[in-house]
């Protein structure tokens, strides 16, 4: 449904030039299949955020190649022209904090993306409700973000990330602010949604609680990724 997931080959990112140049990403290779959830771990300064920003089309890599779904978005200096539309249609974002729009109710927080893409309001809201139901927060559909618990807000953020059926979801420390039980619930939901919507999910995390749940992990160190097999432990 969503093509070939995410493919990154030889991705490089250099900040600055001359003597002050820093190679944040030296040689990153990643492959995440549709429906798969992989972890991206590494110490501070290893290049996780830079990689996430390159994947999220908010930072230009220096070299390499990136493919989202069936679309090449970067190829050795060439990049897709409308990155705003790319982020809207091809990438779902989930952050450490939910960052819901405080002045929109839960349904419209999720429905905003399809609305921005030009989908009719009614249809956008119907899609939002479908996802909210799948994530078991449909009973708070008309509530404002401030009226929800942290776990509920994070589920709404997941729904927002999924609503445009993107081929990839980038989750930046999605469980950092949650307790163990809620953190595991979020990972379980991400896995379910990834399978259901055939979405490739990359979870950047430091969270020791959830690292054992990944079947595959990418360890990034000094701008280079190393693939590792994870434990793929069942969710509690």
């Amino acid at each position, binding site marked *: 449904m969503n093509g070939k997931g995410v493919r990154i080959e030889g991705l490089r990112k250099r900040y600055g030039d001359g003597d002050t140049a820093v190679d944040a990403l030296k040689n990153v290779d990643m492959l995440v299949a549709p429906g798969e959830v992989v972890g991206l771990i590494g110490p501070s300064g290893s290049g996780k955020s830079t990689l996430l920003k390159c994947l999220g089309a908010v930072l230009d890599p220096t070299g390499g190649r990136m493919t989202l779904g069936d679309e090449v978005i970067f190829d050795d200096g060439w990049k897709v022209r409308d990155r705003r539309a790319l982020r809207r249609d091809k990438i779902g*974002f989930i952050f450490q904090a939910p*960052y819901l729009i405080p002045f929109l109710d839960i349904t419209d927080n999720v429905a905003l*993306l399809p609305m921005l893409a030009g989908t009719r309001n009614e249809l956008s809201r119907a899609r939002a409700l479908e996802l909210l139901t799948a994530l078991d927060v449909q009973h708070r559909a008309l509530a404002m973000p401030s009226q929800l618990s942290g776990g509920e807000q994070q589920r709404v953020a997941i729904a927002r990330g999924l609503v445009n059926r993107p081929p990839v979801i980038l989750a930046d420390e999605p469980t950092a602010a949650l307790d163990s039980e809620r953190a595991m619930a979020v990972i379980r939901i991400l896995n379910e949604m990834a399978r259901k919507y055939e979405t490739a999910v990359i979870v950047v995390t430091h969270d020791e609680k959830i690292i054992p749940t990944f079947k595959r992990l990418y360890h990034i160190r000094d701008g280079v990724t190393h693939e590792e097999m994870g434990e793929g432990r069942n969710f509690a």
Partner: protein
Amino acid sequence: MISLAGRDILHAWGKFVFTGVGLGLLIGVTLIMAGVYRGMVDDGKALLDNSGADLWVVQKDTLGPYAESSSINDDTYRSILAMPGVAQAANVTYLTMQVRKDGTDVRAMVVGIAPGGPGVTPGWPLYLVAGRQITRSHYEAVADVASGFKLGDHIIIRRNHYTVVGLTRRMVSSSGDPMIFIPLKDAQQAQFLKDNDAIWQNRRRTRANPAFDRPGTPGLLDAVIDSQSTNAYVNAVLVTLKPGHAPDEVAEAIQRWKRLTVHTRFQMEDILIGKLIATSARQIAMFLVILAIVSAAIVAFIIYSLTMDKIREIAVLKLIGTRNQTIASMLMQQALALGVIGFVVGKITATFAAPLFPKYVLLMPLDSIVGFLAVLIICVMASIVAIRMALKVDPAEAVGG
């Protein structure tokens, strides 16, 4: 597409409305300031309208009787009446002074009007709101309601007591002081009336002058003293014209043959508005400019603050693919909504506060329209700062690290 601006306003409507009310009070002050200026101009025009004159004949080479002092003989009007094109000519005196009543006093312009009647003799109040016109030769007065006097009140001008027999409205001087009309002879006396000691000293000086107290001419001293104790001067002669006569031509003839200065209505407006209230008008204009700048700065600051509060949301909106145009539109709509709320509050405030001011405050619909447009323009300009800042927000800020 839903209205992001509308949702944001509804979400924090209390904060938004209170901000709008604060801004509205500032706009209200600005509108009142404009109204004060309009009131001054209107007072000047009311003074000219109420005089009922087409021409003002004054002392040669003066801008009298309102902007400069002017003094001409009180029999001059007879020769002016004989000039071609002149329908009516009447003496008038103006004296701004404190008029007393029961231990308190009111700043007023005392107007001496020649015998005659309203609509016939220039200078008379054309309409009364209560009472009657002056019918006796002395000690009756018609007062503007702004003076606070009532029918039957006894007021004191110099040493004489007057009874208020009529009340009029919007009869004010160019500085907004209410007018009090009294008979011309009383007004002439009031202008030059001295206290008893001064009169006695003056007579003593005259008597001591051998030129006036000649043994061979016994009536000379009395004649000189009599001439010193009477006032045969007025400030101006108000002239109305016969139909079909151009004011400029009649004025030219009077100036040429009577060696006096004559101002037409157009010239008097220029004197009053261009000279008499020009400094005050510039002062108010400065206040208006300062208030407009302060309002713009406050609107800019408010919109900037509201935007700063939403910087994370804006980063998220940009990251998830919201167009810059949508974000700019949201901020501009909020700025305009703030301006509309502010203007409505300001207009209501100005409307209810204007009558409380001691001087006339004239709120003109055109000023309100111009003010409304200015507020909208200021809001748009002010929102540009916030929009520029919002558009500079890097969507990467929403991503950690």
